[in-house]
């Protein structure tokens, strides 16, 4: 009984909020808060047809490419760095400094170095998304339980086995939380690189709509970016749940008992 009520509350509240938005804005004449109906109308017209391949797909492809490059590179470089103390000492200060720079601030530099093309956008995304995962990988590997490493020594696991069967899974939770932050960063930089540079992509379209006062178009762009942000995170979570099932399960159990 109680759980049914709570469930209703969970599903009901967002629906009520949407309904409130719909009706409260229905005959809004406020320039900046157009009716939701109109926003959805523009959403369909703009993103589902007109600009789907020219803008939406371009943005998504840049995001996916930049993010994938960043993820693979960060884990690989992270391993090399974490497992070799001299390399770690050498790159630590530089890496920490680069990490301190707001990633969006690098976009103007990339524009100046590489122009405004796809390569600039993908590089910006990849570079900005690199650091969170890289740092998480190094931290995760350095925090691997001594006990587990001792087991690996006692049973004389080979170097490869040690990396694949012990280090990678043990650092897995941290690597994944780094990847999650990277995803957010990649998404932000995707938008920023479009707003600052070229005239293509969802970010550019949204900013253009704002600058030419097409408020419903702007709202529909915001809505689309919101949905993409949510969906990307959702997909990520699906993968994480699958890969880290052991970790999530053990955490839940530890909390429940």
């Amino acid at each position, binding site marked *: 009984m109680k759980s049914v009520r*709570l469930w209703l509350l969970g599903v009901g509240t967002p629906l009520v909020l949407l309904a409130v938005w719909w009706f409260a804005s229905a005959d809004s004449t406020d320039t900046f808060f157009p009716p939701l109906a109109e926003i959805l109308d523009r959403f369909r017209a703009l993103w589902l047809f007109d600009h789907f391949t020219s803008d939406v797909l371009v943005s998504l492809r840049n995001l996916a490419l930049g993010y994938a490059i960043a993820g693979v590179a960060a884990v690989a470089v992270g391993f090399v760095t974490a497992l070799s103390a001299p390399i770690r000492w050498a790159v*630590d*200060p530089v890496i920490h400094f680069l990490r*301190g720079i707001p990633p969006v601030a690098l976009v103007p530099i990339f524009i100046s170095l590489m122009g405004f093309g796809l390569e600039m956008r993908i590089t910006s995304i990849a570079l900005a998304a690199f650091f969170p995962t890289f740092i998480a990988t190094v931290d995760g590997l350095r925090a691997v339980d001594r006990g587990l490493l001792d087991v690996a020594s006692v049973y004389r696991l080979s170097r490869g086995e040690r990396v694949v069967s012990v280090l990678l899974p043990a650092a897995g939770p941290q690597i994944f939380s780094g990847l999650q932050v990277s995803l957010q960063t990649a998404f932000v930089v995707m938008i920023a690189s479009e707003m600052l540079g070229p005239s293509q992509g969802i970010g550019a379209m949204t900013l253009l709509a704002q600058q030419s006062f097409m408020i419903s178009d702007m709202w529909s762009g915001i809505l689309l970016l919101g949905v993409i942000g949510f969906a990307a995170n959702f997909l990520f979570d699906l993968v994480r749940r699958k890969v880290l099932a052991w970790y999530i399960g053990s955490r839940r159990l530890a909390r429940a008992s």
Partner: protein
Amino acid sequence: MALTVKPAVAGAAGIAVALAIWQAASSAHAAGGSLPAVATVATDLGGLLAEPDFWSAVGATVGIALLGLGASAAAGIVVGVLVGSFEPIRFATRAVLEFLKPIPPIVILPLVVLILGPTGQMSWFLVFLGCLLPIVMQTVDGVHSTDPVARDTARSYGMGSAEILARIVVPSSLPYIGTAMRVSAPAALIITVVAGLLGGGPGLGARLYLAQSGGDYPTLYALVIVLGVLGLMFQGATRFAERRLLHWHESYREVVHS
């Protein structure tokens, strides 16, 4: 002794190599000459540091970031404790929070710029929004992470619910709030810069925009270096605060033997 010198030497060597690569690329006229020489940027940086306008921009950036962060921390912790402690509120807000959480504030930047204009208030508001949700979510997690055994201990010794909230639940969630602050502090700085760069809010972001659109590359690089240093300081400050407050937590315990 040997152990402390070695990382420092290696670190210095790393910095030297990075600077050398930069210098080589710039002298080789890579990227159409838009990469300024190290010395040019250093001179420009020196010029900036002597400029009162620059310092007021730094002040504006840091001030906005800190004010926004402070406000979202205060609001986020209260909301988080409420949401975490009361089941109906938690269920009612869960879907909405989960939906909004992964959406970065840059998404609503165009709207906020329209409504508040290119002002400090606009930047502050974006920082507030951008940091609020992570802090709320982490606080909720923290409240949930309260060890049931600790809670039962308190109950078995006859402590009331207000006392349990104050003495058990809030201290238990501190590590989570600490994590949220550690993530949010650099984020606050980033959002302030983004608000300046893309929305025209005051501070270093706007300076960055002017440098870019004016093609003033040395200043562009100098500003990015300044931002890097500010970012480091923000990270350092939150780490320091966290260490002081959470010295008892696993991740900060002084290693007794090693």
